[in-house]
């Protein structure tokens, strides 16, 4: 992605409490997002409610897989709140393979950020705790989130990640947009990068 568009958002709000962030081919992503918002609008008219996060995640996956042989060149991370109000993150590849994880990072800086997150969050595998959840049907409600951080700590970690990525990755831009999603609502925070 070139740096022509320094002020264009890389995130799009899908539902009341769902946010999709992308890397990849911007035109494909905009087409994809337009399609998904239309599908979400139809869903709202048919069911008179917002799409749940597993539903939104599955829809994104099938939409991507529908174009398996001429894919959307889009690498998405979907952030959402589950029915318990806990945060959930879904991460995708371009053809719709997806997974629920505790944290994820994609794009050209993603390869730099991901191992750092693995290290900092001290999780041997982001799957580990989730597998317990799926296999033994432990209610996520009774369990800590996969990433046991306070909001301030989490924001700080994200800032550090991007500041670090921009040291080596030339495609990481001049500005960081963070979307903070919690029970009380949605909030956007910005940070300038590369000020040195």
């Amino acid at each position: 992605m070139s740096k022509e568009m320094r002020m264009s958002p890389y995130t799009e709000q899908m539902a009341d409490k769902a946010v999709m962030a992308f890397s990849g081919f911007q035109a494909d992503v905009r087409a994809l997002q337009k399609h998904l918002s239309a599908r979400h609008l139809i869903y709202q008219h048919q069911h008179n409610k917002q799409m749940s996060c597993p539903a939104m995640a599955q829809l994104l996956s099938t939409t991507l897989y529908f174009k398996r042989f001429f894919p959307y060149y889009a690498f998405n991370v979907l952030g959402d709140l589950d029915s318990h109000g806990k945060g959930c993150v879904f991460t995708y590849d371009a053809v719709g393979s997806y997974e629920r994880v505790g944290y994820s990072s994609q794009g050209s800086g993603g390869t730099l950020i991901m191992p750092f997150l693995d290290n900092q969050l001290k999780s041997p595998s982001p799957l580990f705790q989730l597998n317990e959840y799926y296999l033994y049907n432990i209610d996520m409600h009774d369990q800590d989130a996969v990433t046991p951080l306070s909001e301030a700590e989490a924001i700080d970690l994200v800032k550090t990640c991007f500041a670090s990525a921009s040291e080596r990755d030339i495609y990481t831009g001049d500005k960081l947009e963070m979307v903070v999603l919690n029970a009380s609502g949605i909030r956007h925070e910005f940070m300038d990068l590369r000020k040195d």
Partner: protein
Amino acid sequence: MMKENNSAPAKMNLLLSPEDSQRTLSPYVTGTSVVGIKYKDGILMAADMGGSYGSTLRYKSVERMKSVGKHSLIGASGEISDFQELLRYLDDLILYDNMWDDGNSLGPKEVHNYLTRVMYNRRNKFDPLWSSLVLGGVKNGKKYLGTVNMIGVHYEDDHLATGFGNHLARPILRDEWKEDLSFEEGVKLLEKCMRVLLYRDRSAVNKLQIAKITEEGVKVYDPYSLKTFWNFKAFQNPTVGAEGSW
């Protein structure tokens, strides 16, 4: 022997169907940068009038900015014939919209959206329109400035440029652009950008047009030249002090 002779053209026909030959695989006559900015009363745009045939400056009076409907102005760089085809599409669009005769008319946002769809759909057919476009306009007091390129990437901003302009003009605009530029200040800023482009972009020519669009409508000004200065010492003997390796 006979068999080989026959199979060769058949293979050629498979590889080069008439459909394939219609695609723009590489551009022929191209225009270089367009620069557009928002200013106090609307949008200002500048483009030179060169039409390059490869690296030959073949045409020197190509108008690359045109009005679209009542509220929009489009500027193009890239393949000139593709731009002209696009203008025909837009003419159809505006005409069809006009025939409703309902007092509504397409604004810049709608036209830009249409352009993004056309460009993106053509790239999905592997048959792109080889252009980078800047679309500006004013409707109901709202200024609009957007861009699309040949693969369908599109966005809005307060100031935009295509091609070389992205490298040479936009850094200047990021430093010097402000929300409430007057017409004179805007023209001055555009001229500064166009002068840098003229000096540094080999396919730019010293004949440019400025166009503005306000609530009152579009005005494309007559072409004119920029004052240049080439008498710097370093230009007169560029190799002095650079001894070279042999």
